[in-house]
């Protein structure tokens, strides 16, 4: 599914190297977690993969099912099946959440040469999915993320994910700023979307989210690279001991 090989990325504005040879492979249907201390380059990785401006790839490659991601515009990556759940979802005043969703769904369908969803069909699907995620109808009518609580914003990201049905989902510190109940709702949403054709890359600071979303593999990231990979037990080790020993051990 997702294959990242020896990725080197520079922050354009500051001429600063952030990713320094990161390699990672997420096979079909698997959930991988990336953990690491602040400043290790976790968010940069998610932005580079989704095509945000301001980053320069100096070396390496990233492919989604064999297609070169780095060669595509952000919207092409989305149409190819990549989805990024934002750490801080953006507010768009005046644009109804439903309009946003429908524009996005149909833009992707059109890009893939599929037929667009009719208003009626769209309404039916969005209502059903919102209900599954315990999102009330009112939130669908409100402007995108405007006045949403932290939990509502994250649930809205999961709703978008559910509507767009991506193959590869990247979640950028989705757990930050969530209380226990909100975290459960979000992870229930993710778990409901898990299947053999969809993969997840969950970027997180803490083990707590991983209690709800069981990862297949946990990677530890430091200074722009993956320094250690292992099973779910690796996350528990971080929780108990912190990063200190692990990073020292990795050199």
């Amino acid at each position, binding site marked *: 599914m997702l294959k990242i090989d020896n990725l080197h990325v520079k922050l354009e504005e500051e001429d600063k190297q952030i990713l320094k040879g990161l390699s990672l492979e997420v096979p079909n249907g698997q959930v991988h977690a990336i953990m690491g201390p602040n400043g290790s380059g976790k968010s940069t990785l998610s932005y580079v993969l989704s*095509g945000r*401006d301001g980053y320069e790839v100096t070396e390496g490659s990233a492919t989604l099912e064999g297609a070169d991601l780095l060669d595509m515009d952000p919207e092409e990556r*989305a149409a190819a099946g990549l989805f*990024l759940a934002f750490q801080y979802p953006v507010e768009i*005043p005046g644009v109804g959440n439903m309009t946003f969703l429908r524009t996005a769904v149909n*833009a992707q369908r059109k890009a893939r040469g599929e037929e667009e969803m009719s208003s009626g069909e769209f309404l039916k699907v969005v209502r059903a999915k919102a209900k599954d995620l315990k999102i009330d109808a009112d939130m669908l009518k409100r402007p995108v993320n405007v006045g949403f609580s932290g939990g509502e914003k994250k649930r809205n990201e999961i709703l978008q994910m559910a509507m767009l049905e991506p193959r590869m989902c990247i979640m950028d510190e989705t757990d930050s700023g969530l209380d226990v109940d909100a975290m459960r709702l979000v992870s229930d949403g993710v778990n409901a979307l898990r299947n053999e054709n969809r993969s997840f890359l969950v970027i997180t600071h803490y083990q707590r989210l991983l209690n709800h979303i069981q990862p297949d593999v946990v990677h530890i990231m430091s200074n722009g690279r993956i320094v250690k990979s292992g099973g779910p037990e690796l996350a528990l080790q971080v929780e108990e001991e912190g990063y200190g020993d692990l990073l020292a051990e990795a050199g």
Partner: protein
Amino acid sequence: MTDTTDLDVREGVDRETVETVQNMGSYKYGWNTEIEMEYAPKGVNEDIVRLISEKNGEPEWMTDWRLEAYRRWVTMTEPKWAMLNYPEIDFQDQYYYARPKSMEEKPKSLDEVDPKLLATYEKLGIPLKEQMILAGVEGADAAPAEGRKVAVDAVFDSVSVGTTFKDELAKAGVIFCSISEAIREHPELVKKYLGSVVPQSDNFFATLNSAVFSDGSFVYVPPGVRCPMELSTYFRINAENTGQFERTLIIADKGSYVSYLEGCTAPKRDTNQLHAAVVEIVILEDAEVKYSTVQNWFPGDEDGKGGIYNFVTKRADCREDRAKVMWTQVETGSAITWKYPSCILRGNESQGEFYSIAIANNWQQADTGTKMVHLGKNTRSRIVSKGISAGQAQNTYRGLVSMHPRASDSRNYTQCDSLLIGDKCGAHTVPYIEVKNTSSRVEHEATTSKVDDDQLFYCRSRGMDEEEAVALVVNGFCRDVLQALPMEFAMEAQALVAISLEGSVG
């Protein structure tokens, strides 16, 4: 106009809008109708004024009225206070009268109509039956009406070419016709109200219009009548080097209601064309008028060549108690816009509202806003202005809120938001506030923001391309105003917002 059955229209941008954007060239109405025209000689003088009056078959009092205006105009100088930059206009290098030759005699059937005139309306999306009526085919009005029920008065260059649904309106007592017809058929109304809201001496452009206006629309809604359908006028400037000077006079008698839509387009040309219109609205006791404009003149090309110079005076007089007016405008296409649809709140408890979207892209310049003149007690006004600047464009909001000594307990609320796309354009806000009594309240809120890169990236990461994303964000920014538009215009306006910003990013 587009089909408006889709209920999602008020939500923001939708599929149709986005499709429209993608399927359209940069200016959809840029074609030119090759049609045989009859021109008056270039330039303006007393003879031209007389000629226009004669062509319209006007009585002597009207000719005199025009001449009086002309004589005043030659003593006036062009106003320069607006934040607009344009080369000096040579007022003697314009045609002040042009009409399709075929308009001389009424065609008896569709076959007799110049097919190019019909094709023009077809391209504008006007249905066949209405095309026939607009082309002046005798008896076309008797055919059963289908489709949308919006009465149209179409003005092609200097002449009104036809009005639809006239009979149906007449049954309700509503008079809807060209102003030249009104001058002939309803002189008592015209005499009483023409120039009573915008006096001949009002300003340079209004005075010029008073002298040379060629046609326009006339509406009279009798006491207690709610006009049974939307009325609309469609202005098209076709001929080259021709100024359009239309005059609109709307009178809403006591307790009546009317909603009036105005649309305008012009062919794409690399010379500038002058448009100086006057709109006067008289609103009597308990009456209400909604006036909406979607202005889509050709804005000039990416290099700032061509486009319409638009110098327009529009004013509504809430002449008696509890009269109400609502202006809604979407301004997307003019090289230069100089326009301030205003409200005189003369009657006690009268109300004025102004909702505006002004989009300036490439090299466009817009200096636009409103005046709310509170004269009566307990009067209310509300201004919502959204200015969007892209490319090298400059957009100025200029507004006057004036509370006169007698206008006790009156209120105004102004919200003025500017949005910048790119870093070479400008947005300016120039509010004038005059309060001469102690019991009134005036509020002014203004914001300036940039189209946020984060918002665009968020949209693109969900699959929208850059122009779709800009259209979505801008539609959101304009939402309050788009919502105030009648349904008939909302779709068109939404699409226009997107179209006029094409090429503003990337």
